[in-house]
């Protein structure tokens, strides 16, 4: 069996869906952030696969940049979570209701 472009796209779609579903059903903020990272990683697969398919390096460059952005996003998300945890002793998003109407 030859691994073709569509296999990569299917894999990426599966990873993206996993992340999306996880984001929707989990209530732990850290797990939600991890699911978002999964979504970002799935796009990396798509970019790398298409980059190879089209024969230009643009997609690969995008993947590198995406790594850095994902790390920065995770870092800021975690920093905010640490700060919240210090005051509330919880990271469950259902407990954050100060700003509801």
């Amino acid at each position, binding site marked *: 069996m030859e691994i073709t472009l569509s296999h990569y796209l299917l894999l990426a779609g599966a990873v993206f869906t996993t*992340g999306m579903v996880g984001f929707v059903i989990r209530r732990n903020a850290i797990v939600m952030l991890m699911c978002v990272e999964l979504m*970002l990683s799935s796009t990396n697969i798509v970019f790398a696969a298409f980059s190879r398919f089209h024969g230009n390096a643009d997609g690969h460059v*995008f993947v590198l940049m995406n790594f850095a952005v994902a790390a920065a996003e995770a870092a800021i998300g975690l920093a905010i979570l640490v700060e919240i945890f210090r005051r509330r002793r919880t990271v469950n998003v259902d407990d954050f209701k100060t*700003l509801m109407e």
Partner: protein
Amino acid sequence: MELLNLNIPSWSDLAYWRPEAILCGTFLAALLGDLIGRGRRPAISFVISVFGLITAGAYSVAAVLHGGAAHTIMGDLIIVDGMAAFFRLLFILAGLATVLFSWTAEEIMGRKRENKAEFFYLTVLMTAAMMVMAEARDLLMLFLSMEAVGLVSYVMAGYMRTSLRSTEASLKYVIFGAVSSGIMLYGLSLLYGMTGAMTFDGIRAGLLAGEVNGLSLLITVILILAGMSYKIAAVPFHFWCPDVYEGAPTPVAAIFSVGPKAAGFALMIRFFYTTLAAGADPSASAPLIELINWPLLMAVIAAVTMTYGNLVALRQLNVKRMLAYSSISHVGYLLMGFVLLTDAGLAAILFYLAVYTLMNLGAFFVVVALNNHIKSEELDDYAGIGFRAPWLGTMMVIFLASLTGVPPFAGFAGKFYVFTAVMDRQWFWLAILAALNSVVGLYYYFRVVKAMFLTRPAEGADTTPLKIHWLQYTVLAVLAVPTLVLGFWFGPLKVLADQAIGLLSTGM
């Protein structure tokens, strides 16, 4: 080794990119100043930030006066053209006003704050990132600039790190921001897959050359729109907006309500106009817009956004939250200019954005000034405040009347252009709906005016006049005077907006 066939970056590119480079340098210098002062000398960062913003503004004005053609720089990633110049000025105005006004804002400079200086250089960094958003002409730069603005705003929303409300706002912002940018990124990757190009005009060429499947293009566009709608807070990606505005410090909410929104619109204009719309060759691209039924899609989003924002704003008792919902409804009006992707509509968006920046920033700043004294943003606490601070009250009336869109204020001119752009192409139902919405807006905006001037304060309440800092009065006057003047003398700004869009269509 053979280099790829692209526009190789060089030092000379920086000649067209001075404002952004200066702002990046300002950010680093102000950060260093903060470190040297060990976090206890916010004045160092304040002075550096103000100086940097003014210098960058001077260079931007010089670039406008010079005029000239569009320049593609940084290896095809960035384009500096008329529209970029327009948004540069807008963002520097917003950034400078926010920095100056916040110097006396209790929420930023209160004694308990340990990170006062950070606000100033984060604002500078955000201004630079927003300018890049307006200049991106490549998917990579689009994503990076959006993330740069996003990351800075997450930090700024959580600026009051000891406050439950502020950190909660920040968390909501970062989690949903991350997921929406993930969704957008997936759309971008599919678009790259369809066309094999990263630059906007390359994508356009790819879409026109290949056999594009309407459904897959529609899905891709919707995925990308999700990320952008989040940035501009259009329904259904608006839910963060009221919470973040309420939880974040008011000066931060002020710049959020104008800066990233305007930058999001700038990005949308360049992206969708270049990839989908007519551009220089009207006949070629109509199929693309028709293929995904773009006008209907946009019209529905615009209609839902403005109606939702207005109806929910009706029952808000917190002025900050009310302004948040009102900003959602203004996004709805602005999106009307997108329905047809015509030059007239886009120029109307630019005009409206400039006016909106002035009046919305002003309204938020009045809330900041009042918050310094009464420590509240509840409508009930505004009772009779107009008599304690008459000038502040008068300016609030100007800003709110302009937000409503009553003549002869600038907001009216803005709405007028957007409405005519839609009616020119027979989208009457949308224009009528928008007009009805404006009437709804009248009710809740004037409820604030009524509270300030027509309601008696409770028995025994403080009635001493409020002392407002001269710097705050100056900034407010700088925002209020154009809001008044542009109401009847809007020709020059309109010409500027038309030119910006005209250059966009020819300078590709």
